[in-house]
């Protein structure tokens, strides 16, 4: 399953900073629409029985797998001055 939200938190020593909630679930439909031409290319290659089709399909599946696997990633770096936290869920 693709990640649904990401959080980026940056804090300075005064406690001020940025706390961003990024709704990734809004990004996927847009990305899907942008990828529609790619689906057309895949369809055409399938019709032409091109030998590049398996490579393209495995690349698409690898990219989707990589995006889906991002879920759960967490990076938290903190010192006396600043705090940076990135989470993807």
């Amino acid at each position: 399953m693709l990640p649904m939200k990401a959080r980026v938190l940056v804090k300075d020593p005064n406690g001020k900073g940025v706390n961003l909630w990024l709704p990734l679930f809004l990004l996927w439909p847009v990305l899907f629409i942008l990828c529609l031409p790619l689906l057309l290319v895949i369809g055409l290659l399938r019709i032409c029985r091109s030998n590049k089709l398996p490579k393209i399909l495995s690349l698409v599946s690898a990219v989707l797998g990589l995006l889906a696997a991002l879920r759960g990633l967490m990076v938290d770096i903190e010192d006396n001055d600043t705090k940076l936290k990135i989470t993807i869920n």
Partner: protein
Amino acid sequence: MEHKTKILAMLAEGKIDVSEAEKLLNAVDSKESPKREFSETAQRFFNILIDSKKDEGTRVKIKVPLRLIKAGMKFASLIPEESRKKIQIAMRDKGINFDLNELDSLNVDELLDALQTLEVAVNDSETSETIRIFCA
């Protein structure tokens, strides 16, 4: 477990016979098994914890899903041969001797299996730095 005890109690009381008890126990087992599968396949993370008390008290906590490592390796295996060579040369120049050609699905699974039992703990008293690498 509670269901099984009830079934056995019903059998002891003579409310059901052995064949009925067997059927019920099988039904309970089939209901319980998906839970077990879930816990076995639950997401595991590769954790890196660095705690330095010396400089500015830097604390680093990185949690990478093992699935991401696997997906990354799968992605790396799709890199064309020519680009692989270039990457390899660049990595060698940086002092990293790693052969990308050795990355196939079998190696990835073996590596992930090995990672699941990995636990490294380094405690440096001179720099007051603690590094922990483990899977959980």
